């Protein structure tokens, strides 16, 4: 009996999935865009807000009558933060769903895995990952764009601020994932330009529980500041350890720090932490005439109302990507090549959440370091540093 | 008496287990073609000696010669390849394989094939497979297991498991077989059959046998000579008759002032 029951459950589940699998066949001429996000897995801190943003935008746009009357359909696939899954997701979107363009993936590795697929399929991809190799060399990345700022831009923002403060020796501590590694490389690459010496170069795993050792080493190396490059719980633990150790030197975080949740988790320890953040996080502190302010305000408030949490910088990447494609669709219609050309040539002085975009055939990202503000945590809130 | 050539010579072997002397200066010869029994009370070191001969344990001191060649401290598989095969006190069959397969594995030692090349032999059944199959069936007929070739070894009754284990040892075509308590767990009828098979192996196949056994009836019936091991030392070595009358042996087994009755199973 038990066996029969289990077999039954298995069959039902199997049928259900096959049914759902087949079901998504037809709708009435909607514009289909695909989205591949790391909704689960180690990079879910990126994929989650991105997914939410996509769902919210789809709802908003369709409520407003769609794109030139066509409803917008965003088909979201979860990559589980895994490259193989990213490849499969993209193939599914291209083959089964016949999407016009793809948003995402969330991480650099996954984006890189999709480059040859998108080039073969001659379909535009707007990545939500920061890594420079995603869009460079541009010649071999004909169909690929990305919306996040370069890591080097965030680093330049930090180094530039440090130079003003007279800091020239830093110890860096990075998470041993693609995100941390990209930051680490950028920190090394940009250091000479700003006359900065890296006295210690430490790492930790994404699930590590204590970074006191690495911080102690940095302190002993004579560094005048610590830069931590990570996302997830790691940055909170580093902040707590930094505060407990009373290191006496300032702690800088990456742009991954941009969520109130982090301040909440770190509590008092977060006081004084400095980070380069996109304006999305500090929109309420921008002057009213700032070109991004209106859009940031609407996005943040809508998101908070719908999901009871902040979109953070990462949700913004998805926002920018989707809005670019929506605008292109509106102007040129459902033609992959034309969409690509539109994004490459017509996105100029285009305010997004990440900054003011200026795409060109030489630059498929279109942002520079001015996209960041240096922000310090004060009394449990952000404060823009001048 | 069978032959005068020593097939196996054990010379001054010592073995300690963590300070406990298991074997002390053991000297023992097994002559070509004889059935030699090794008896002694529990814990006397009989199985230890078999394990040392077959290479499972290393000896501390002394040497072992097989066909005048030193074999001590070689790995078990090398010793087996030199022609010493054995069975175990707790039957060590390939329990999940069939009776036939057990024997076929036994033939491996004489029909080595190359591991990586085996995948490239693209005929349905190779000639050597056929040969091994035929020989294995003959062997099973020989030990009267011919009717059970496709049974899973674990499902055989213990008596047949023991016989199968002996047959597998024979399949390696050894010069010497070490049998470790082959009659343990067998009833009287099975024990008699076992005795018959052991005798036939010696007589028809000319294989020398060294036997560790508690069943005195079996030992006295089939052995040409008997050695007695007590507290790691050989205390007697001779024909069954001589050993039965040896005073040291009687003391070792039964304490002072008593006689061993022939056929008395010491262990029960």
């Amino acid at each position, binding site marked *: 009996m*038990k066996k029969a029951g289990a077999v039954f459950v298995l069959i039902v589940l199997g049928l259900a999935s096959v049914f759902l699998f087949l079901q998504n066949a037809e709708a009435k001429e909607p514009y289909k865009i695909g989205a591949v996000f790391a909704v*689960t*897995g*180690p990079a*879910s*801190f990126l994929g*989650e807000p991105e997914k939410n943003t996509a769902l919210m935008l789809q709802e908003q746009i369709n409520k407003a009558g769609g794109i030139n009357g066509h409803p917008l359909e965003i088909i979201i696939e979860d990559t589980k933060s895994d490259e193989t899954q990213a490849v499969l997701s993209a193939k599914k979107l291209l083959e089964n769903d016949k999407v016009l363009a793809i948003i995402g993936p969330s991480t650099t590795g996954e984006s890189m895995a999709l480059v040859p697929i998108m080039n073969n399929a001659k379909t535009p991809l707007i990545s939500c990952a920061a890594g420079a190799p995603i869009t460079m060399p541009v010649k071999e990345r004909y169909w690929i764009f990305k919306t996040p700022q370069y890591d080097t831009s965030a680093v330049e923002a930090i180094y530039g601020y440090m130079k003003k403060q007279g800091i020239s020796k830093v110890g860096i501590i990075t998470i*041993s994932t693609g995100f941390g590694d990209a930051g680490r490389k950028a920190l090394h690459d940009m250091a000479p330009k700003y006359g900065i010496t890296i006295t210690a170069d*430490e*790492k*930790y*795993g994404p*699930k*590590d*529980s*204590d970074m*006191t*050792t*690495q911080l*102690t*080493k940095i302190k*002993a190396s004579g560094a005048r500041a610590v830069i931590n490059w990570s996302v*997830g*719980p790691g940055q*909170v*633990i580093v902040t*707590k350890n930094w505060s*407990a*150790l*009373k290191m006496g030197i300032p702690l800088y975080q990456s742009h991954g720090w941009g969520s109130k*949740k982090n301040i909440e*988790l770190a509590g008092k320890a977060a006081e004084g932490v400095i980070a380069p953040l996109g304006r999305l996080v500090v929109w309420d502190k921008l002057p009213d005439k700032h070109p991004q302010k209106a859009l940031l305000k609407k996005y943040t408030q809508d998101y908070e109302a719908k999901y009871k949490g902040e979109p953070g910088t990462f949700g913004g990447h998805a926002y920018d990507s989707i809005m670019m494609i929506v605008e292109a669709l509106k102007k040129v219609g459902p033609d992959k090549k034309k969409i690509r050309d539109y994004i490459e040539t017509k996105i100029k002085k285009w305010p997004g959440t990440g900054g003011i975009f200026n795409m060109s055939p030489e630059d498929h990202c279109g942002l520079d370091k001015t996209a960041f503000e240096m922000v310090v945590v004060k009394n449990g809130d952000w404060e823009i540093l001048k | 008496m069978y032959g005068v050539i020593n097939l196996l010579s054990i010379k001054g072997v010592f073995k300690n287990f963590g300070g406990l002397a298991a074997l002390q200066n053991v000297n023992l010869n097994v002559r070509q073609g004889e059935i030699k029994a090794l008896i002694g009370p529990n814990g006397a070191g009989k199985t230890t000696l078999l394990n040392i001969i077959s290479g499972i344990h290393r000896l501390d001191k002394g040497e072992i010669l097989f066909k005048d060649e030193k074999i001590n401290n070689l790995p078990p598989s090398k010793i087996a390849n030199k022609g010493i095969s054995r069975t175990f006190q707790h039957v060590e069959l390939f329990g999940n394989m069939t009776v036939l397969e057990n024997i076929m594995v036994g033939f491996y030692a004489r029909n080595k094939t190359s591991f990586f090349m085996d995948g490239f032999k693209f005929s349905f059944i190779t000639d050597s497979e056929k040969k091994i199959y035929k020989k294995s069936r003959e062997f099973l007929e020989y030990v009267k297991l011919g009717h059970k070739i496709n049974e899973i070894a674990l499902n055989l009754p213990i008596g047949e498991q023991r016989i199968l284990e002996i047959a597998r040892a024979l399949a390696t075509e050894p010069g010497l077989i070490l049998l470790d308590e082959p009659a343990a767990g067998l009833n009287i009828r099975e024990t008699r059959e076992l005795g018959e098979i052991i005798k036939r192996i010696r007589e028809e196949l000319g294989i020398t046998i060294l036997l560790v056994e508690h069943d005195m009836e079996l030992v006295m019936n089939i052995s040409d000579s008997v050695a007695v091991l007590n507290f790691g030392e050989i205390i007697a070595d001779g024909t069954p008759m001589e050993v039965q009358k040896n005073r040291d042996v009687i003391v070792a087994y039964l304490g002072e002032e008593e006689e061993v009755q022939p056929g008395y199973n010491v262990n029960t």
Partner: protein
Amino acid sequence: MLTVFLQFLFSGLTIGAVYALVGIGFNIIYNSTSIINLAQGEFVVIGGLLMWFFSESLKLPFFAAVLCTLISSGLVGLLIERLTIKPLKNPDLLLMIMITISVSIVLRGVLMFLFGKEPYVYPPFTEGEPINIYGAIIQQQTLWVISITLFCIILLFLFFKRTITGKAMLACAVNPTAAKLAGVNVSKMVMLSFILSAIVGAIGGMTITPISLMEYDKGPMLSVKGFCAAIMGGLGSNRGAVIGGFIIGILESMTAGYVHSGLKDAVALVILLLILFFKPSGIFITKSMSQLRKF
């Protein structure tokens, strides 16, 4: 120099205490079933997240929250055993281990569904400044973790050595048939071991969350490290698991401090492999002890 060394040591102890607790959890189930329960890390996560739920979300007083967490974790252990382990009579060991892996996947799914993906934290058991020893600091919560770990081992030691139930549980793994013949209710003992192991895991989770935060997918890493700790000490030996845990923790910290932080996991594993090479059944289990067990 001393300060730096001490700081590395304290950091190692903090990390190691967690591994030790997970390692003990492995042992409890192993000792009564021979199964390696790879959902052990999830028990730790459950402990941390439930403690957050009871103390921060429901605002229960501290001890009530602790009690509720322990009871509900025990229930999870019970449920897992009754639903997946009990129905299988006489199973293959590897299959059981695979089942614990698939159970851990289900648990992660449930935790993600209930708690989402973000990390959680609550205040340490005692608020206050870290303790300063020769210039190196050790957080108060770390002391809690270490003392609770030690307390757990002592309790478990007494349980397994002094109580009939404890001894009966040990007997189950070595020879279930014999234990059954001796009148031990094997099925009940297995159930008990899952409950106990879930509780020990939860204790670990409750104590480390204020230090290391807790999120739904921290389990696999904890399982792997705890497994290594248990193996290093010798499966079945709680003393071994604790020492194994601390050794791995300190090795990681010292490697990060004196060699290179990117290599800390690898160095700890190389040492583990070396230990296994010379002592194939761990530090505290002798060869003859390990031969009693099939696995």
